[in-house]
């Protein structure tokens, strides 16, 4: 197997093809942003430099979709993406994150079963990722991959499983965040307890073809939402959909388009949070303390390094020196 050529010319050519939605090239670039080898940050930096200066680069808004397993998130994303792509000719990437096994580290990524994009529409791209934890939430590379996809597509969906703390990171990543609930479960109670109701911008009651149960859930939401969001700006919007019959999909698509402003070039404003997270995942509490106490905190450190990738390289060196490894 020939590894993708890493010369500047080759990278530029790959970027050119990726911007024209050549799936293999997109996947190759994504691979660089998921790569844990030491030379990867330099390659990522180069790709983003070339891409950031490219006249055809895009600036996707990031849409977070979360909810418990079985709430129908994947089916819903599949439907909405198809609707947005067909009616508005938007290019869309989906990053679906699933939990992995603690015992083996391996993961079973099954969201693809429910999302079928037509083979003749490469403007729709789907990528599965493992969260590297049993609970769900974002994977260690999700932010990295979003830095790339942000420039390649008009819209990026990030789908995560889990309730509670593991979702807070999605809040940091997404420009708008949806929580998907299904009327059948007693999930809403658990979610209220876990405090997750504070997180989303909007709630989607999916599987509303189960009319009776959906009405019950809606009623319980309207009475309890104000209580559960003592600090929010009022209760979030509540939408009803059915991934099976397609009901409410158009309204959800409208809601997404209506609420996402065209974001700035790059994900600079999100870097500090994800740099701190990366430092913790890679180097543990010791790393995080070093960053906060000796290196002036994530925001300063990233700014003074001149970018996320440079900061990663510099921080790795700083930690090795501090810990003498």
């Amino acid at each position, binding site marked *: 197997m*020939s590894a993708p050529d890493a010369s500047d010319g080759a990278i530029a050519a790959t970027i050119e093809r990726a911007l024209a939605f050549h799936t293999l090239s997109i*996947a190759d670039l*994504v691979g660089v942003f998921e790569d844990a080898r030491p030379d990867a940050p330099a390659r990522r930096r180069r790709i983003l430099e070339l891409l950031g200066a490219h006249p055809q680069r895009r600036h996707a808004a990031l849409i977070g979709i979360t909810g418990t397993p079985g709430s129908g998130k994947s089916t819903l994303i599949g439907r909405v993406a198809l609707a947005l792509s067909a009616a508005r000719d938007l290019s869309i990437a989906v990053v679906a994150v699933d939990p992995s096994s603690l015992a083996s580290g*391996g993961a079973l*990524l099954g969201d693809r079963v429910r999302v079928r994009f037509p083979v003749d529409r490469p403007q729709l791209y789907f990528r*599965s990722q493992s969260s590297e934890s049993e609970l769900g939430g974002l994977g260690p590379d999700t932010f990295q991959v979003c830095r790339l996809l942000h420039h390649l597509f008009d819209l990026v969906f990030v789908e995560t499983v889990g309730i509670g703390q593991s979702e807070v990171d999605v809040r940091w990543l997404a420009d708008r965040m949806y929580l998907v609930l299904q009327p059948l479960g007693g999930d809403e109670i658990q979610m209220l307890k876990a405090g997750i109701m504070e997180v989303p911008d909007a709630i989607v009651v999916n599987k509303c073809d189960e009319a009776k149960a959906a009405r019950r859930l809606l009623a319980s939401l309207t009475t309890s939402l104000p209580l559960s969001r003592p600090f929010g700006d009022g209760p979030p919007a509540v939408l009803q959909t059915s991934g099976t019959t397609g009901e409410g999909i158009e309204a959800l698509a409208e809601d997404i388009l209506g609420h996402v402003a065209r974001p700035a070039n790059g994900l600079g404003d999100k870097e500090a949070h994800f740099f701190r997270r990366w430092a913790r995942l890679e180097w543990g509490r010791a790393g995080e303390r070093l960053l906060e106490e000796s290196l002036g905190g994530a925001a300063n450190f990233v700014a003074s390094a001149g970018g996320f990738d440079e900061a990663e390289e510099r921080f790795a060196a700083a930690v090795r020196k501090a810990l003498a490894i």
Partner: protein
Amino acid sequence: MHLVVDKEGKPAPDRPWIFRTYAGHSSPRASNQLYRSNLARGQTGLSIAFDLPTQCGYDSDHPIARPEVGKVGVPVNSLDDMHLLFDEIPLDKMNTSMTINATSMWLLSLYIGLARERGIPEDKLTGTTQNDIVKEYLARGTYIFPPEASFRLIAEMYEYCLDRVPDWNASNVCSYHLQEAGATPVEELAFALSTAIGVLDTVRSRGHVPPADFPRLVGRISFFVNAGIRFIEEMCKMRAFTELWDELCRDRYGVTDEKLRRFRYGVQVNSLGLTAEQPENNAWRILLETLGVTLSRNARCRALQLPAWNEALSLPRPWDQQWSLRLQQILAYETDLLEYADLFDGSPVIASKVAALKKEASAEIARILDMGGVKSAIESGYMKTRLVRSMAERMRRINTGEKIVVGENKFSEGLPSPLLTGSDGGIFRVDDSAVTETLAMLEKTRKSRDPKRAAAALERLRAAARGSENLMEPSIECALARVTTGEWANTLREVFGEFRPATGVDGQKLGLETDRVAELRARIAKLTTRLGRRPRLLVGKPGLDGHSNGAEVIAVSARHVGFDVIYSGIRLTPEEIVQSAVAEGADVIGASILSGSHVELAGQILDGLAKAGAADRIQLVMGGIIPSDDFEALKKRGVRRIFTPADFGLVDVMADIVGLIEERVDQR
């Protein structure tokens, strides 16, 4: 006392059960010839196997259908095909069982349409449409619509048949496929009876059948059961079924007439336990399994079909089917089995085993009803998860040698089988020219029909589906108007939507916790460092065959040793598999195929990879029922490894795949 006697007290042996052979392949014309020769050899009923496009509601010329046409059964596109299929077979004298589910209503409508055109009164038709959607969701995979709509179709068939085709079994509750998917006897009992409750509760709550007629409808429920190699337990299971059903009909549905509470069932004995190694041993297995469902008079099957000794290798040839039929004939006509009353009444061993099965099954039924019944238990993935776990447990016991499979994990040393040395290698191949004939007939039907009548019939079907009119009569009109299978199914797809069920891959335990797993995990950790990420395996099923449990066990095993596994599901075109593998940056595609279309599908996947520029990155391995004769051709084409049921050692399979990736990384 011990003999079966007639009213006058004279010995009168029981009539034998109906002898069937599950058959159909290539084209309506070829299948018709097969049926007629089987009937001439003493078979007493028909059991029709349909090909996957017909089962999944696609016309033979649909892209996803093309590689599958005529492979595992006969293709039926329209009423014109039915005329060929039943040529010179008297419908009013034939008991016809159709293995058809999501499109059951369509096939029954075609059968009734055929009777109408031949001038045969519908009330003379006898037979069965399998029509058990629950086991399709759980095991077999030929579902189309979501549960609510599927149950509506089933209920409407019962309502229609009750008075107009009174001897038709509108559905056949199947525990058969549950056992194939790994169910324990208790799960078989509980899941099948819960399904029957689901059907009856649906019909009752719709309120279209007057309460006075309801017991008669209960009496129309029939079952299709599996018989495994533990034949004493299997016989007890049948007795437990009989007793539980009797109690259920009486207590839940208030049926007072004992005859209407009788547990009527047909059997196909187990194929799961049949081995590819020393395949001749399967003949004995089939015999023993047959005893489980015939020995006990009180729980004897109504109809029996036997698999062929070489089923783990390929579809049976006519001679293989004849050999199985002869077993039934010897048992019924040569032995004294049918002369005696029940042999086991009064046996304390049998009684206590039956009681234990009943108790556990009743508890499981109560659990499912608590969840909201069988529909909820499917949607939540509960039943699927249970089955996948049981299957994994079965594999674990075979892997550890706890469960002995002669010729496979014990006594595997043996002489080569002379049965496999014929010029055809002991296996059956579909004649490809049959497809041309089928496609030509479909073309002819579309051209020669009255387009206005066909369009009007479809419009009426659509309107009925949106409303609440019974869909049988509109479907029969579609049949008569020469609407095609794909058109009928697509119209309902547009109204009802399509279903994607829970995969059941969660919560499995494989019992592979051995040193070899630890060793493999270490190898994968090393690979992860070298690649900068975990190795990625994409598992999917191209084509229409929906037996997904094998693919799921592979997916779970791969996660267990440390792969990132992308499970992409079933009913994929080769193009979709390629698209997924490329987009996901997979190292290996594992494609599972049981329908016999492996050569075509492998070619299409490899061509697709080449076209996407990924031929040197993504390797293809295949699993399924693949005759060893095809290995050479597949390997030449570029398939890197082929796994068959003989490769039951999951750790070996995984080690093989890891090795393939290591090789590629070394070459870089």
